[in-house]
């Protein structure tokens, strides 16, 4: 016999609300009838069941016996029908008091929305498992670099890349991993499919996709057998984003041919949108086979990702790698013995630079939630206390205490539903904003970071938690007066309109308000510190003026440009660009300041013909510039001269050094005329010294710089930098035209105004600053409301006393001063507590501050003044109310 079960939701509701003794029998009867009815009409039976539940009056079964002539409608009966009535009544009540409802709803919404949105970010960047199969089995395997002073042995920055011969040895000898694959990042010029474009790519081993366990969304990845090439030629796999933006998401894309750096590739697959590479934000993947065909200089920097076998642990992997690393060191005695290690992939998903602000924001959001709860508690408490008279009257007229409690509970629930709905909407908006932000940020992010930041989804777990928290708070707080108040003498309540014991309520509320102020103060201080930091960053001396400066990158394909041709190209381009209207100066550098990790580095090998001792040696930044660079950028030449067109291929090699380099190599001497050589190069003469430029970070100089001329050392890949007389969007069009005038197949990419680059370099600080400021303003408003609410309640309550005072001769001014005075006390108390809190908590902010102390007195002082202003504003209306108390009126109502 098919099991026909009555609607379980209805049955559960009944089960919850029926008295224990009767539950079984009533439910049994209902089920029996349900089956009978459902034999004729299933839907009808379902409706009937629900109808019975709605009309059920569970609590009437507990009633005392009533006179037989009483009707069906009892004042004490509860049915689910009356629950809906209650809801309607509660809504009407809430809408009558629009200020309270509006403020409370908004407060709840802010608390829920902010916390949920931020936690969704935390979840997606730090907690959610990576989009690979069994991601906890994946590890990154690295060779170790020398330990720098102050670094721990297991510092992640020691982990470096593999030169190919060493990787080969690892590949042949390793046994600890089930499978492994290489990956490295590069860029290609994409031609043969619309506008030429420069794309980021990963060059990967054939088993890369299978190691990660990623299944292609369309087509396939590379297979170990064919290793990315077939008789048809070389294969390429596209990312989802590239597929959509370049090929319109057309499923016919498989089998199409595209040209990467002039070499044809066939599209064999498209990866899902959740995966955008590990090292870089990859827009496509090609296999190692391609490397043989490309003649590039960088390919001794492989990364390795590996999958651990089922039963093995991370420690075993690390140990195995240490042993293997030592063997490799033995086989390659010419390089430093350093060994190797392995690290779970999860630990490299986001760098510390993202982790810190994210956790910080999470803490801030938590404070906002706390403030919101406190605020709601205050509001509800204040409201229910001011309704004491109403409650007392109703109790006196015979309304059951239970019924009153039910009503207050319903009101709290309705409020929570309103606030919760708005909060969910806010959280959605917040998450959407974070997603677009994550997608818009362009650089200094690994593929895993980008994937994390652009696929943030609303975390239901957090939402439920927040909703629960903000539901319980008003519930608890709203019930207190109902439960407590109904025990007190009703007569008293009716007489004075304020029950005794409410004095304690004021103290409690006062404490809550002070806590709110303290929390808001802390956030305000944090926000102030960050804003100051941003200000300092804006003023930081990076060594040049970023105004009206445009930058764009060009990469010449090696198949068509050798070194002389590259030099000729850029020289010709600069000439053309300088002739454009509005262009004040144009220059070339291989890597502009704050650009995406294109910087070359090296070491000074000899000075004046003598070798440098290894412990004196520092890493330097090596910059390739065209003549006229320093003038265009606005970097002063301090000594000697800069490059000219006369420094060419046939003339002796020359270098220009930065001030820091000069101070390091030849302190207190004139470096002009001296000579130095770098690793792998010959001697060059120093012809000039220029001022320092901060190429990598806004906050500080990262390395001493050495400049060489592109006339002597041509580059195929670099940036055209232009200074204009005014900002304009059309500049870049003109530049692009100039480029295409020389070569129509060249893409111009990484186009950005210099000011934007500098700002982006500090985006983390700015972003955090903006968000925390928003939070600070929110909590400021909330605490102002808290103060206002408490003051106006207090004035209401003391209206009587104020009246007496004034009848005895006190002036209006005194009453006013009283109110303002107590407001000030609240603010002062809150600020004092807040200072303690802030001193402790701003420690966490320290990593993001620049030239600002976490205990900066100016910030603390300003925040304190803000609160004084806030307290004065919040007290305005209650103060006016107090001073306009008419003593006669008040005394009359005795």
């Amino acid at each position, binding site marked *: 016999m098919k099991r026909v*079960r009555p609607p379980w939701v209805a049955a559960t509701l009944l089960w919850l609300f029926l008295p224990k003794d*009767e539950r*079984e*029998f*009533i*439910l*049994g*009867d*209902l*089920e*029996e*009838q349900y*089956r009978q009815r459902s034999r004729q009409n299933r839907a009808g039976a379902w409706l009937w069941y629900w*109808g*019975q539940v709605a*009309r*059920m*009056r*569970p609590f*009437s*079964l507990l009633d005392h*016996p*009533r*006179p*037989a*002539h*009483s009707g*069906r409608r009892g004042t004490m009966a509860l*049915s689910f029908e009356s629950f809906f009535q209650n809801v309607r009544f509660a809504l009407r009540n809430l809408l009558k008091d629009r200020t309270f409802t509006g403020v409370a709803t908004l407060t709840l919404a802010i608390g829920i929305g902010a916390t949920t949105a931020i936690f969704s970010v935390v979840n997606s960047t730090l907690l959610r498992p990576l989009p690979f199969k069994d991601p906890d089995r994946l590890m990154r395997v690295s060779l170790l670099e020398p330990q720098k002073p102050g670094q721990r042995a297991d510092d992640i920055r020691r982990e470096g890349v593999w030169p190919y011969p060493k990787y080969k040895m690892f590949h042949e000898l390793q046994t600890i991993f089930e499978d492994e694959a290489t990956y490295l990042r590069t860029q290609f010029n994409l031609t043969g499919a619309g506008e030429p474009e420069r794309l980021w790519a990963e060059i990967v081993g054939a088993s890369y996709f299978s190691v990660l366990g990623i299944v292609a969304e369309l087509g396939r990845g590379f297979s170990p057998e064919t290793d990315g090439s077939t008789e048809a030629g070389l294969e390429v796999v596209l990312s989802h984003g590239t597929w959509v933006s370049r090929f319109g998401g057309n499923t016919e894309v498989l089998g199409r041919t595209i040209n990467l750096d002039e070499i044809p590739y066939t599209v064999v697959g498209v990866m899902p949108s959740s995966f955008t590479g590990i090292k870089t934000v990859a827009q496509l993947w090609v296999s190692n086979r391609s490397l043989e065909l490309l003649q590039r200089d960088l390919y001794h920097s492989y990364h390795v990702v590996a999958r651990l076998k089922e039963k093995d642990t991370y420690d075993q992997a690390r140990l195995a790698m240490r042993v293997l690393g030592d063997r490799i060191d033995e086989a390659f005695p010419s390089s430093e013995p350093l060994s190797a290690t392995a690290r779970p992939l999860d630990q490299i998903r986001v760098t510390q630079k993202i982790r810190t602000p994210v956790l910080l924001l999470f803490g801030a959001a938590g404070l906002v939630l706390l403030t919101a709860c406190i605020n709601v508690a205050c509001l509800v408490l204040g409201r229910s206390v001011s309704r004491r008279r109403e409650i007392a009257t109703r109790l006196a007229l015979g309304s059951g205490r239970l019924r009153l409690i039910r009503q207050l509970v319903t009101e709290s629930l309705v409020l929570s539903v309103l606030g919760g709905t708005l909060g969910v909407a806010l959280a959605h908006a917040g998450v959407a904003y974070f997603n677009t932000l994550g997608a818009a940020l362009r650089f200094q992010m690994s593929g895993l970071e980008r994937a994390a930041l652009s696929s943030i989804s609303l975390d239901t777990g957090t939402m439920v938690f927040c909703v629960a928290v903000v539901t319980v708070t008003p519930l608890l707080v709203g019930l207190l007066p109902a439960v407590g108040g109904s025990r007190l003498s009703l007569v008293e309540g009716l007489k004075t309109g304020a029950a005794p014991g409410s004095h304690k309520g004021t103290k409690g509320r006062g404490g809550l308000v002070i806590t709110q102020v303290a929390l808001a103060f802390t956030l305000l201080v944090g926000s102030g510190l960050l804003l100051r930091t941003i200000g300092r960053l804006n003023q930081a001396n990076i060594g040049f003026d970023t105004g009206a400066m445009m930058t764009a990158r060009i990469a010449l394909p090696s198949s068509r440009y050798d070194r002389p041709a590259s030099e000729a190209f850029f020289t010709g381009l600069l000439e053309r660009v300088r002739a454009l209207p509005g262009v004040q100066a144009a220059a070339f550098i291989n890597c502009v300041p704050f650009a995406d990790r294109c910087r070359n580095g090296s070491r000074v090998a000899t000075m004046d013909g003598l070798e440098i001792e290894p412990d004196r040696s520092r890493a330097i930044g090596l910059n390739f510039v065209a003549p006229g660079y320093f003038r265009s950028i606005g970097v002063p030449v301090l000594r000697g001269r800069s490059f000219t067109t006369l420094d060419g291929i046939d003339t002796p090699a020359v270098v220009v050094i930065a001030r820091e380099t000069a101070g390091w190599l030849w302190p207190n001497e004139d470096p002009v005329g001296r000579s130095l050589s770098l690793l792998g190069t010959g001697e060059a003469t120093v012809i000039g010294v220029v001022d320092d430029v901060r190429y990598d970070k806004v906050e500080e100089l990262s390395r001493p710089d050495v400049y060489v001329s592109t006339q002597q050392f041509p580059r195929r890949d670099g940036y055209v930098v232009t200074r204009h007389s005014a900002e304009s969007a059309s500049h870049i069009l003109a530049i692009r035209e100039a480029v295409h005038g020389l070569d129509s197949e060249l893409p111009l990419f990484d186009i950005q105004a210099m000011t934007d680059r500098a700002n982006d370099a500090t985006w983390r600080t700015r972003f955090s600053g903006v968000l925390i400021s928003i939070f600070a303003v929110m909590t400021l408003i909330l605490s102002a409301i808290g103060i206002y609410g408490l003051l106006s309640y207090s004035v209401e309550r003391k209206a009587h006393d104020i009246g007496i005072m004034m009848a005895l001769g006190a002036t209006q001014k005194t009453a006013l001063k009283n109110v303002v005075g107590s407001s000030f006390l609240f603010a002062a108390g809150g600020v004092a507590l807040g200072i303690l809190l802030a001193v402790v908590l701003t420690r966490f902010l320290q990593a993001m501050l620049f030239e600002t102390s976490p205990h900066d007195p100016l910030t603390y002082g300003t925040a304190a003044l803000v609160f004084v202003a806030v307290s004065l504003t919040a007290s305005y209306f209650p103060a006016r109310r107090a001073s306009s108390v008419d003593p006669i009126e008040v005394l009359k109502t005795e």
Partner: protein
Amino acid sequence: MPKSLGEFEILILFAIVRLQHEAYGATIHREIEDRTGRSIAIGAVYTGLARLQRSGYVQASIGEPTPQRGGRRKKYYRIQPDGARALKTSVQAYRQMTAGIERELDLVFADVATRRNT
């Protein structure tokens, strides 16, 4: 003097008398619905039964579980002497009220019927 019964309680007692040994929540409910043609909330039946029980007019006993009830037991109700007396009082009251006016009642009913037809 026993308390006078409400209208609904009278219906419940009638049903219990009719159903004899088969009187429990579901059957009582069904019986009243069928015979009066009204749609009754089962909650009202239980409320009435609870009151009758408290007044001592009916007594409950627990029965066996059955699969139609999802394995739950039934609660049977039997009318008690006090209940029977109360019921008899109520029935007698009705009898007194309607004694000798069957003819007038019929006329009223017929009148209503003709009104409906026109």
